[in-house]
């Protein structure tokens, strides 16, 4: 009995998580970096919100909307970036050849980087959310179950984009590395993080509603401003996430096979 389920061996995934744990535990600067950027953003948005709360009644009534939006958006971005960085670690190390001649399957490799994406995001976002409570008296955790649902939905979309980016970099080499940092920002204008979808022109609204983050951030505003948990929005987000995850995995596997056809797994790196 080797513990495999659907051809996935959890021990090999754990081996890859151990590999990434070694990287993080051996470099405190990497851990600090995971917290640093979200913390700077949170502090900036916190003071901006404090300033605006004194000027407009809307912000005064829903003080945490911008802070929650910022922290949830950063969670999404950090999950996607964490997935891509975990993959890039293997590219930078020229280690893909060693990994893919071992019993590790591409699907197990993909699952390991997805899990690392979440872990890296949590390492950054949990301290930052506590700092928001400490500095500005805003607790993200007051959203309760909804926060878990929002985070899960954003995590799935971060996974979908992150794993597709991994495939893209594997196929096109480190020349495509900037996609790891830039891909998510392509959707920021239509993700409705800080403003509702309704302010967008009609044609952009169509694009916004085709992406799960718009559902999550509209749902977040409905909860924080109106006190309503919009399950319809959550369900829409999860349904779209299932589609994007399937597409992300298909893209990764397609690019993996293309890399095998072109001999790119041996010797890629800096």
């Amino acid at each position: 009995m080797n513990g495999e389920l659907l051809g996935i061996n959890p021990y090999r995934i754990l081996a890859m998580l151990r590999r990434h744990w070694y990287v993080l535990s051996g470099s405190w600067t990497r851990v600090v970096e995971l917290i640093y950027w979200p913390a700077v953003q949170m502090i900036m948005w916190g003071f901006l919100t404090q300033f605006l709360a004194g000027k407009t009644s809307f912000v005064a009534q829903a003080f945490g909307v911008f802070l929650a939006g910022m922290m949830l958006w950063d969670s999404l971005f950090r999950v996607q970036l964490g997935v891509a960085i975990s993959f890039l670690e293997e590219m930078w190390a020229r280690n893909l050849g060693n990994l893919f001649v071992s019993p590790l399957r591409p699907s197990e490799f993909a699952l390991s980087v997805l899990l690392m994406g979440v872990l890296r995001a949590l390492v950054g976002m949990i301290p930052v959310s506590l700092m928001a409570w400490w500095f500005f008296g805003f607790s993200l955790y007051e959203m309760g179950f909804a926060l878990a649902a929002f985070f899960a939905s954003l995590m799935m979309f971060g996974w979908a984009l992150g794993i597709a980016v991994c495939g893209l970099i594997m196929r096109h080499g480190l020349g495509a590395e900037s996609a790891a940092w830039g891909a998510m920002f392509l959707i920021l204008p239509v993700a409705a993080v800080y403003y509702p979808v309704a302010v967008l022109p009609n044609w952009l609204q169509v694009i916004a509603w085709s992406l799960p983050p718009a559902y999550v951030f509209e749902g977040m505003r409905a909860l924080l401003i109106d006190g309503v948990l919009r399950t319809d929005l959550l369900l829409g987000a999860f349904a779209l996430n299932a589609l994007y995850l399937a597409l992300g995995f298909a893209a990764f596997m397609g690019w993996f096979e293309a890399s095998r056809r072109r001999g790119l797994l041996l010797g890629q790196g800096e």
Partner: protein
Amino acid sequence: MSAAPVIAVAGLTKTYGSAAAPVVAVDGIDFTVPAGGVTALLGGNGAGKTTTLAMLLGLLKPTAGSITVLGIDMLRDRHRVLPRMNFSSPYVDLPHRLTVAQNLRVFADLYAVPHPKDRIAELARDLDFTALLDRPSGALSAGQKTRVALAKALINKPELLLLDEPTASLDPDTADWVRSLLETYQREHKATIMLASHNMAEVERLCQQVLMMKQGRIVDRGAPGELVARYGRQNLEEVFLDIARGRGKAAEQATA
């Protein structure tokens, strides 16, 4: 009755580029590797050695042909056979920021090696790098890296070991030491080793079979001594030069 070959390759072909202008890297090669010996793939740069090894490992998809490794169809079921083989190459590396022990532990876990700490200690002893176990892999010299890469390749006690230029960039003393280690491993574990090398003395010392490649094809094969005798030369290096430069026996074969 002879034992089944550990590797059986038929019509193996790899082309790159478009159908209109294909670049043929490996051109329909056939060979078998018997169990329990050392076989060399020889050839100049670009002859197709690394491409062939990459296809044997499943890292590269052939355009045509079949590969059977340890009785298993590599193109359909490579994940069934990968736990029983391993590989080392100067073209891949181990993560520099991890220590030697950490890197070996990760691969021990990937190969489901029982008692990984004991196995790592044993390899460190055998390959003489116990003092390096806690050092970052990126801080090792070329010779130390080769020994650690070899430890990674031996971590699962592979039945089939594929090596790409196992002694490249090593000083003669370390290279000799590595060859002795490979001989010992092969003998003690009755393993099969296939290596690509540019070092003819190494091949003459280690190998029972040589496959000579040129422009993606196997142009000759045999035991090192047989090849030397057949070409009427003093050593394998002279045979290699005959084949690479298309002279002597190689030229006769080409025009035959």
